[in-house]
């Protein structure tokens, strides 16, 4: 799925990384606990979260993720946007809540564990 399709499906607003919307991603995960992301995530390129602090960016960077979607209209700080620009990460925000946002993406073919659907 293209990152741009994620934006469309979630009616999301892109905060930075507009130039990467054509990039393909194959899996995603949703969590507010970065400890769990670090423990259980493998090869997921997109993180959906309602947590807003710089450690979200660092966690995503450690996991080689390329896009973070903030749910429930959470808005990253300027410091976070600067970190995202530095590492080439796409940031977007959606009004949708976590359950609905994950469900929309999953139902449209973006899987959880890199498995083909």
């Amino acid at each position, binding site marked *: 799925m293209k990152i741009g399709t994620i934006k469309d499906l979630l009616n999301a607003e892109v905060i930075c990384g507009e130039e990467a919307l054509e990039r393909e991603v194959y899996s995603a995960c949703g969590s507010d606990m970065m*400890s769990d992301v*670090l*423990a259980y995530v493998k090869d997921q390129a997109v993180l959906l979260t309602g947590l807003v*602090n*710089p*450690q979200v960016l*660092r*966690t995503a960077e*450690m*996991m080689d993720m390329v896009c973070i979607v903030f749910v429930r209209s959470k808005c990253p700080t300027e410091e976070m946007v600067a970190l995202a620009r530095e590492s080439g990460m796409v940031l977007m925000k959606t009004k949708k809540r976590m359950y609905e946002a994950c469900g929309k993406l999953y139902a449209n073919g973006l899987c959880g564990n890199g498995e083909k659907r």
Partner: protein
Amino acid sequence: MNEAVKLHFLVDGEDFTSAGQASVQVKKSLRQLGISPEIIRKVSIAMYEGEINMVIHAGGGEADVVIYEDRIEIDLIDHGPGIANIDLAMQEGFSTAPDNIRSLGFGAGMGLPNMKRYTDSMKIDSELGKGTRILMTVNL
């Protein structure tokens, strides 16, 4: 690569939001050295968890990363309160992190187990009231 590459970092214990800067730097250095992405990810995650632990529990510390021809060693030293029960601390889900840390997305009791999971060997030396030293190795 004939000579070992050594990296040294001071981990600031005052500011949780800046935790992880050393890990980001290590990741960049490993990439420049042409280390494989799989190895880079293992080292980065183990180091990041260690860094976060140092900030949450020990008021910061020091990190040394040495890249040898056949392995990468990560040596984390702090002068915090020490770990009372290492076996318990190694159990997934066990955490002594305060609630404010949980609200920041950490403190789920996955730090040490994760460090073990992503490395080929991990040795913990800890003394109450003195501090903790964790030596991790990732084979190349």
